[in-house]
């Protein structure tokens, strides 16, 4: 049976891992390569590297770090952040990324999804959506969750999957950084709407939050988190043990 994946996310700026609470107030945590090795040893099933650099110097540093990580860590790597062209896909794939996640880039230019899927395969293209509930409707946000696009989130995600996205990361703006659990109602809706793997992001504060996620939504494929892993509030090995005890398929 396929296991539920646990995915630490590393937000990288100027060569260092940072994690914002509600996307603001960034604080430095550690070296991306060292953290990636640490997580792999601890049993992480996959890693997400998110490039939050804007400058070209920072971008170069990011690809160097990605290359070094991919030379030392042999689990799947997903890269996101600032992906808006096929050249961006190409650049990070050459550095050892296995999957590329697009967010604002796909909102600006949806055809990138189909184009990338044809070139690299569906499995390579991940749509990442920042979603918040506004007046009772789930809306997609762009530009690091700062701008409401007005698009209905479930429709947008379905459209991306129809165009060729092979995986979906749903990041709930409402639960992100709050550490009171994943956004179960939103994630349930997404899982009902699409038939590709769905990764839950935003809100994990403790081991029980992951257990609740996988128990309440048997269709969900993975749970993603950042700060709770970086600050070692949750140890991945303990999390995997707890999952196995709860009868959730886990790779131990």
């Amino acid at each position, binding site marked *: *049976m*396929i*296991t539920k*994946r646990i995915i630490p996310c590393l937000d990288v700026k100027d060569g260092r891992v940072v994690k914002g609470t509600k996307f603001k107030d960034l604080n430095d945590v550690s070296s991306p390569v060292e953290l990636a090795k640490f997580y*792999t040893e601890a049993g992480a*099933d996959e890693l997400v590297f998110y490039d939050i650099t804007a400058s070209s110097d920072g971008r170069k540093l990011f690809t160097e770090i990605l*290359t070094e990580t*991919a*030379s*030392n860590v*042999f*689990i*799947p790597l997903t890269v996101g952040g600032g992906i808006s062209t096929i050249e961006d896909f190409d650049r990070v*794939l*050459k*550095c*050892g990324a*296995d999957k590329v996640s697009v967010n604002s880039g796909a909102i600006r230019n949806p055809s990138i999804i189909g184009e990338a899927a044809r070139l*690299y*395969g*569906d*499995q*390579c293209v991940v749509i990442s959506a920042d979603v918040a509930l506004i007046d009772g409707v789930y809306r997609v946000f762009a530009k690091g969750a700062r701008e409401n696009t007005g698009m209905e989130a479930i429709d947008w995600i379905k459209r991306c999957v129809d165009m060729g996205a*092979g*995986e979906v990361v749903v990041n709930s703006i409402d639960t992100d950084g709050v550490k009171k659990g994943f956004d179960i109602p939103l994630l349930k809706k997404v899982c009902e709407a699409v*038939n*590709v*793997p769905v990764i839950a992001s935003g809100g994990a504060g403790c081991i029980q939050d992951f257990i609740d996620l996988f128990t309440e939504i048997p269709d969900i*494929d*993975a749970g993603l988190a950042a700060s709770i892993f970086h600050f070692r509030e949750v140890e991945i090995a303990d999390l995997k043990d707890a999952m196995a005890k709860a009868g959730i398929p886990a*790779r131990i």
Partner: protein
Amino acid sequence: MIAIIDYGVGNLFSLQSSLKYIGQDVEVTSDPEKIEAADRIILPGVGAYEDAARKLRESGMADLVMEQAKAGKPLMGICLGMQLLFEKSFEYGEHEGLGLIKGSVVPIRDVVSEDYKIPHIGWNALRFKGRAAEGQEPLFKYTKEGDHVYFVHSFYATDCADSTIASTEYGAELTAAVADGKIYGCQFHPEKSGKVGLNILRAFCEL
């Protein structure tokens, strides 16, 4: 030296890195002399079957790989590279493969209900079959039944019971690895399967 066949398909960075990591001398190449001189060959591949099969033929690599494998040189096909070892694939049409291993490649959806998502992406457990079930498979000398490996695929190999050395459960029993003599195929990605995967590559390098 291990030759990773370069025929313009897929991303070979991780595969190359993983082999270097376990101390192997490795070269990504389409140079016939280097491939002939290599101790073993890896046939990688991601993407579409038709395109990959065509590129493999047009580059002259198909004939060379077949010749080397038939002469007894250890060969491992990975993911689409594994599927190319079979006689044919029904991925969007019908396409001819190398025919080094008996069987064909069909959509997972043919045997798996709508309850299961396609592609089959993630970590799944190996169930030993054939000579591996008898403890006779050198590729798995460092691998235990039930170890998890990383899969990403929408098609799988079928009609290959004789060569299957491992399968995995995903709403149906899917072929995970095949072997015929020293010709191997892994549907999963050993270069992305953590320690378990590195140990499978290590065992291949010791064949």
